[in-house]
């Protein structure tokens, strides 16, 4: 009798706990919606909320007959919206990559950048900038493709090296850090021989920016993200099991090696797909999952989607602040995100007493 009552209490507590998390997801989604509206309505061009609304409706629901002018429509549909949408998708993608990698490696310091992806992408972009056909047209795509290919190449090298010694968190992290330094040195060598203009282009690329995002790029990034995301969600239970330790997970029937390889590959794919278009926006990978973990705990079934939402909010907020603060000068989002993310992260670190990493 007593046992049944305890079980009921536990079930109720669990339902309550789950309900809180679902509520948090819904609240975050509303917050993201508000942030999207805010980001879309703010900018250097003096458009009222009414103008923005008209420009959106005129294209999405043309049968309503609401009129807007070409100027407003171009500002909204060609400049602000692509930027906002890319911010949401990139923020979500980078955050989910970080959350998964931290879970798989059982290490709070890990992000896609720890295994050298950013350094490799920067090296790929630098090669294209310095030895490519040019900086625009075919040149732009050369930079994107180079960055993507080198990011993947680095990840495969890391996995390949780790495979020889066994795909454990330690081998992955150490191989990743070694390659990060190698690609860092290669990029530095290129910068050393670069001309003034080339050096400036390389540095701008490494800052990371959402300027110039196009709908085609957004489509590619979104398709890539949406293709990988469900698979990562499928591994949420396995990641939870792995959080209790390698042996526990194995005893529960989890093929840890496969989970690690597949989820890392997917996370790498998402990250490479994003940063090849935006340049290096690193911090969101590390900070968004941690902040989410502080608030809702380490259950990957909730952590993964919540990190996505929070990453999107964080990146969008940083980009909007970077656009507005010193207009007409845009401060690259890769810089601003640290100014916004670090205080928030430190505040939660001091405030929340739960410990997720031991």
């Amino acid at each position, binding site marked *: 009798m007593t046992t049944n009552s305890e079980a009921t209490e536990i079930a109720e507590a669990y339902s309550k706990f789950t309900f809180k998390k679902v509520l948090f997801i819904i609240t975050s989604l509303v917050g993201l919606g508000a942030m999207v509206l805010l980001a879309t309505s703010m*900018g*250097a*061009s*003096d458009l009222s909320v009414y103008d923005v609304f008209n420009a959106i409706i005129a294209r999405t629901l043309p049968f309503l007959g609401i009129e807007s002018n*070409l*100027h407003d429509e*171009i*500002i909204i549909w*060609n*400049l*602000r919206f692509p930027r906002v949408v890319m911010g949401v998708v990139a923020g979500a993608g980078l955050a989910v990559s970080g959350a998964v990698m931290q879970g798989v490696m059982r290490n709070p310091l890990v992000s896609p950048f720890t295994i050298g992806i950013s350094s490799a992408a920067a090296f790929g972009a630098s090669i294209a900038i310095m030895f490519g056909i*040019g*900086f*625009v*047209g*075919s040149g*732009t795509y050369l930079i994107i493709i180079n960055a993507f290919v080198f990011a993947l190449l680095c990840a495969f090298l890391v996995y390949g090296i780790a495979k020889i010694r066994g795909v454990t968190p330690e081998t992955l992290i150490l191989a990743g850090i070694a390659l990060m330094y190698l690609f860092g040195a290669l990029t530095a060598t290129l910068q*050393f*021989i670069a*001309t*003034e*203009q*080339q050096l*400036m*282009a390389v540095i*701008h690329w490494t800052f990371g*920016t959402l*300027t*110039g995002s196009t709908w085609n790029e957004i489509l590619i990034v979104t398709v890539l993200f949406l293709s990988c995301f469900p698979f990562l969600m499928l591994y949420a239970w396995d990641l939870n099991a792995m959080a209790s330790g390698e042996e526990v997970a194995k005893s529960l029937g989890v093929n840890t090696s496969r989970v690690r390889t597949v989820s890392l590959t997917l996370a790498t794919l998402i990250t490479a797909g994003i940063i090849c278009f935006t340049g290096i926006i690193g911090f969101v990978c590390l900070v968004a999952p941690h902040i989410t973990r502080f608030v809702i705990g380490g259950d990957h079934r909730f952590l993964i989607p919540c990190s996505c939402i929070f990453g999107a909010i964080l990146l969008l907020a940083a980009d909007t602040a970077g*656009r507005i603060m010193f*207009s*007409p*000068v*845009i*401060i*690259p989002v890769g810089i601003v995100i640290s100014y916004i993310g670090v205080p928030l992260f430190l505040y939660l670190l001091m405030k929340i007493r739960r410990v997720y990493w031991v």
Partner: protein
Amino acid sequence: MRMNTILAGIAMGLLLLASSAAASDYTLGVFGNANEDDTINMQDVTYTELIILEYRDRTELADGKYDDKINMQDVTQIELIILGREKELTVLDSADRAVTIPKPVERIVVLWKNAPEEIRAMGVIDRIIGIDTDTAGETGYMGGPLFFPELMDVPVVGSCDDPNYEMIIDLDPDVVIMLASYPPLPDEVQEILAPASIKVVGLDFYRVDVFYEELATLGYILDTEERAEEYINFFQSWTDRIDYVVEDLEPEEKKTVYFEQVAKYHSYGGAYYGCGVPGAVRAAGGIYIYDDVSEYGFEVDPEDLIDRNPDVIFKLANVGNGGYTLTDTSELKEVRDEIINRPEMSLITAVKNDDVYVINMGISGGARKLFAPVFMAKCLYPKKFEDLEPHDYLKEYLEEWQNLPYQGVYVHSYPPE
């Protein structure tokens, strides 16, 4: 006493002459230029004597010997400079440093590619005994000679960021010429080379506002003063042609200009002198739209650009060795097409009126900054400059002053309608 009276009499007689010489376009930064005009001549001798006699206030450059005293030794030094027989020369470089150089200067190490271009224009490129990696990169191209064929066998002494001091000391130059405000700074390099008695001078040769001063100073360092004067006259003869027209432009006639760097939506700030691009636009009679921004280079908010709505867009390109090895406009056209095909650009007057010009580095970067205003003026006000052909300017420069064959493609679309 009697001697003093005679001296004073002569001096008073020359006073008017000395005063009138002070109104020049630039100040020659050489100690001995007592009246602070653009040259050193007998007027400076007179001027220094007037300072000694306390008829004139002391000027910074009057101290020809650079010993913090104004006396007859300075007069002698100025006379020696005029005769070209001075043992030492103190110059004020672009980092605002007074540097005393042993004369004559026969052995030079350069740490940036602008300096060898100007040294060649002075006719003494054979005095360069060490070059940096950037200069070395422009000696040859695809196996053939490029800008500096004369320097192909000259030793490379490291990069401008990280010079190889051991090599420089081994080469034992009289002087090292380097950028004035790019790290390592001239003072830092001088400190390391001082024990070897090697002097370091910071001269940029890319800032339009001090270009003539730097050329004139270089002329005095190399004992090629007359050549430097002719060279400055060559530039001025072209810039004067646009100055006369630009001066007469009514404010409402002036066109607004957006200048984009090689990177998309990146421009230069114009509040400070920076890289010289805003100054070049102003010299061409344009209104630089980011005059209020203080950053050297920055990412532009496209929305703001649409609001500022420039009349003309200049886009910087760096293709084909600044344009020198290009044979057609295809690559520049590709750059131009990218700009005009950005959907948001359709809102900008410059794109609507087809006033978008791609300017290659060969007429706008580094030592070629003085060409940009002339090319820009032609693009901005084609009707007012119907008879002006900037390519002739570049041709004369390359053939007459640089001993290079005229070739390349530097601007597109061109000529403007």
